[in-house]
């Protein structure tokens, strides 16, 4: 029986995982080797019944990492304490070993952007993120991993390179890194930069786990859609990352236009193979 105050935590993310979504809960439930999923934190209630699929995974001792998307840690304004409290409550009830969020902002001046927007790579933005991460860390029961996003625009205010910007935030906050390989590909492709050069400059020993997702080219830009297959270039970048330092875990994100189960299984297998992890299918 579980005690009133659970201190037992699942082990950290390991191997190949997948983003748990209600639409593919049945598919995820039937992956025999699965040890790790991620769930969008804002979709999990802080009290009341959990989605049944999540409860089953917990009963199988699958690690569930809450992934926030609406905290707006990069906002100039202080992070909303109610949103931090929700993330903390979800981490607690899922016995999560860590939580994750983005280096981004999603609202400003009373308006919701509706999705993650990039920060200027300025010292002022570094200060704002670090202050908000510290506010969150003060309330969270577990460590936080920070994810750099894919951006279609850059600020004219940029002062730091991407590697320096990210490294300074990680150094000052002590946070872990959630490295999204598809975002690295997208940004490099859209800025005409070398994704390997960024991998060479990031503190890869701080990676808690990595994201991989699909995308597509529209209008001369690569869009990180999460609704298309994972391109070969992204899989190759997974291989390049693992050759430098393999992260403890890799997670496939799919957020719509769900393919037949066989195709999704093949993507998970391709990820496992690119990283040298055991297949979970």
């Amino acid at each position, binding site marked *: 029986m579980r005690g009133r105050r659970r201190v037992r935590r699942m082990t950290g993310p390991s191997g190949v995982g997948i*983003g748990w*979504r*209600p639409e593919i809960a049945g598919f995820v439930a039937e992956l025999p080797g699965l040890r790790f999923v*991620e769930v*969008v934190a*804002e*979709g999990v209630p802080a009290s009341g019944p959990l989605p049944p699929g999540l409860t089953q995974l917990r009963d199988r001792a699958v690690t569930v990492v809450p*992934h926030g*998307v609406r905290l707006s840690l990069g*906002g*100039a*304004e*202080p992070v*909303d304490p109610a949103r931090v409290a929700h993330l903390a409550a979800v981490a607690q009830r899922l016995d999560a070993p860590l939580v994750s969020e*983005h280096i*981004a*902002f999603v*609202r*400003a*001046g*009373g*308006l*919701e*952007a*509706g*999705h*993650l*927007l990039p920060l*200027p790579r*300025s010292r*002022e*933005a570094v*200060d*704002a993120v670090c202050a908000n991460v510290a506010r969150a860390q003060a309330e969270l029961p577990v460590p936080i991993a920070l*994810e750099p*996003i*894919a*951006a*279609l*625009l*850059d*600020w*004219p*205010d940029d002062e730091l390179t991407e590697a320096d910007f990210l490294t300074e935030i990680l150094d000052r906050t002590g946070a872990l890194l959630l490295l*999204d390989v598809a*975002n690295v590909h997208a940004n490099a492709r859209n800025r005409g930069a070398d994704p390997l050069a960024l991998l060479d400059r990031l503190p890869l020993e701080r990676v808690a786990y990595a994201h991989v997702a699909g995308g597509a080219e529209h*209008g001369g*830009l690569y*869009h*990180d*859609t*999460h*609704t298309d297959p994972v391109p070969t270039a992204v899989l190759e970048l997974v291989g390049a990352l693992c050759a430098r330092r393999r992260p403890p875990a890799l997670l496939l*994100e799919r*957020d*719509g*236009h769900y393919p037949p189960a066989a195709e999704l299984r093949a993507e998970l297998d391709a990820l496992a193979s690119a990283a040298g992890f055991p297949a979970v299918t």
Partner: protein
Amino acid sequence: MTGAGSAPTPRAGLAERQAELVAALVAGGEPPTGFAPGPLAATRAALLRKRAGEVARHWPLLAAGLGARWSTTFTDWAAGRPTAGSLRDGWDLARALHDRHALPPAAAEELAVREARLRYDGVRAPRPRRVPAVGRAGGAVAVQIAGRVRLLRPAPRVSTRAGDGVPDAAGSELWISD
């Protein structure tokens, strides 16, 4: 949240710049100084696509009823109009289409059911109705008693144009990630 009205801080510059950028992306605001127009337009379009997918998940019959026209119908309506959340966005759009007699039958039924269940004044968040209510839209009639809603009369199917495709129901406000 702390917000407008708080004393100026050393971060005022960043706060203003972020507010200008969001307004330019979702509320038809002037582009902030120094941003290239192409990437701004690409970001604006990407935000609308994400938002269309989220609203389609909250209003599946609205999106399915419009079929192949869903994407452009939504983005034409939503461009320059900041989101009020997916529930209210879809509700406002459904009412606007209803007023133009452009609401497909399945979407009219979805709207009638919502109107019967929740009170929505177009300004504040919808709230459950405390007393029995009837919801009507495009000939559809739904009734709510003690929180239970039944569609009493379906909307008449007079056209063959509805349901001519599958909506982009990718992701939702609650489940989409990055």
